[in-house]
């Protein structure tokens, strides 16, 4: 069970503010890990370090460099057609058949020749997913990839990502702030708080891949608690009790 990527004791500060204070993490191939955290908790910094877009101040980052990222915004080059965007970084010889397959897989083959500006939000994110998968990444990083999509599109995209990850089996690391999404998609949910991984929860699944309702409820409550959301306080007017 070798890890696709492993980091140890990773620290990172920006202008004297410690954002990551010693993070350990290891993800196997085929494993889907979700990271929850409030804004400013350092979850994006961690993802950028895994993507090698940022360097830790200290600590070890080891593992595959065959990495792909899907960001919250599709980040397609507006001046290149969809197929050419998907082929980014591939050699010409590799590109042709593989781009077609990748677009087929995400259900976007009919739009291969479109300009990105003419795509809907869901289509653009599919193109971005095709661009990630076309290179058979060993590590797939998802940075709140469904955050900008409407609820219905998001459900379709969830199904798509489950199917694609089952088929290609990359190690997946997803940053999100949607607890239900984390439970639905991942094998393991981590919570980061104040620069440290604070809690880890393995998601138990039934034979059909779904989560048992009572386990789901418990997991949700646990994660809310780890995120510092006190559910009784939430239903009470906080300001009144403070005064």
């Amino acid at each position, binding site marked *: 069970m070798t890890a696709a990527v492993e980091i140890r004791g990773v620290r990172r500060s920006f202008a004297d503010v410690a954002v990551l204070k010693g993070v350990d993490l290891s993800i196997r191939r085929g494993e889907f890990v979700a990271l929850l955290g409030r804004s400013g908790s350092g979850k994006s910094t961690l993802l950028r370090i895994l993507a090698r877009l940022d360097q830790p101040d200290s600590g070890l980052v080891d593992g595959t460099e065959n990495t792909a990222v899907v960001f919250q915004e599709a*980040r397609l*080059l*507006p001046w290149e057609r969809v197929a050419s965007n998907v082929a980014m970084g591939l050699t010409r010889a590799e590109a042709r058949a593989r781009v077609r397959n990748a677009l087929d897989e995400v259900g976007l083959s009919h739009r291969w020749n479109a300009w990105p*500006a003419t795509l809907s939000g869901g289509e653009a994110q599919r193109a971005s997913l095709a661009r990630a998968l076309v290179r058979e990444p060993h590590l797939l990083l998802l940075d709140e990839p469904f955050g900008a999509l409407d609820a219905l599109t998001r459900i379709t995209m969830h199904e798509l990502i489950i199917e694609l990850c089952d088929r290609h089996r990359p190690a997946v690391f997803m940053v999100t702030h949607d607890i239900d999404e984390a439970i639905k998609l991942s094998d393991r949910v981590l919570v980061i708080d104040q620069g440290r991984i604070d809690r880890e929860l393995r998601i138990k699944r039934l034979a059909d891949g779904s989560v048992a309702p009572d386990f789901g409820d418990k997991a949700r409550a646990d994660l809310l608690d780890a995120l510092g959301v006190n559910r009784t306080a939430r239903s009470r007017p906080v300001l009144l009790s403070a005064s």
Partner: protein
Amino acid sequence: MMSNGERSRSAFSIAQLLPWLSSISILLLWYFASRYGLLQEQILPGPNAVLHAGWEAAEDGSLWRAIGASTFRACIGSLIGFLFAVVIGVGAGFSRIGELIFDKPVQMIRSIPFTALVPLFILWFGIGEEAKILLVVWAVFIPLYLNTFSGIRNVDRRLVEVAKVYKLSPLEISLRVLLHGALPSVLVGLRYSLGLGWAVLIVAESVNAKNGIGAMLSMARQYAQTDVVLLCISLYAILGLITDLLVRLLEDRLLQWRTGYIAQ
């Protein structure tokens, strides 16, 4: 539905005709004013006199030689200025070191009016082609560099990040992401700088040249041939319009991805 379509189409064609109508009215006004003696022939000859001067110059070949000489200088100078502006603009926009080396000096020399350089270039290069071509290079380079640089600085850095994730080389990043993203701004700069290139060329040619439209212009001024002066001015206008048209065609072709956006 039908009548709706008809109406919008006719409104469209009137909007298209209006600018032409006003231009033609001015020409007609000019024509009749000179024909009925309202304008002094020495001050402002009529459009027919200008056409006549053009016809004569075309017949004895001097018109074509002048246009040829000026166009040659404009093309060579613009091409060199363009290459320098884009290469240096991308270099300065892409790398911090490039910016430190190039941007400050260009920002400093941009404030020198090009007319101030004419005597200097003549002293350095004499009355050969070099002085005139270099002035065009100068005039094209400065605005085009500024637009390329700022265009590149305005390209979404998040796209550069994606290119880095997918391991594009620095050269690929500068061409495929930065320069391409800066194209709208580069083309605006190109249109402006080519216009300026023509303007510089008139000045340079009328100060010292044996041929070219500017030379024809200053000669006509010496002999008080107002019709030829007007002819030269019209030639510059026509050449300027053609240049503009070429850039616009280039824009249509290179910025297709944006028209796709507008059509949405």
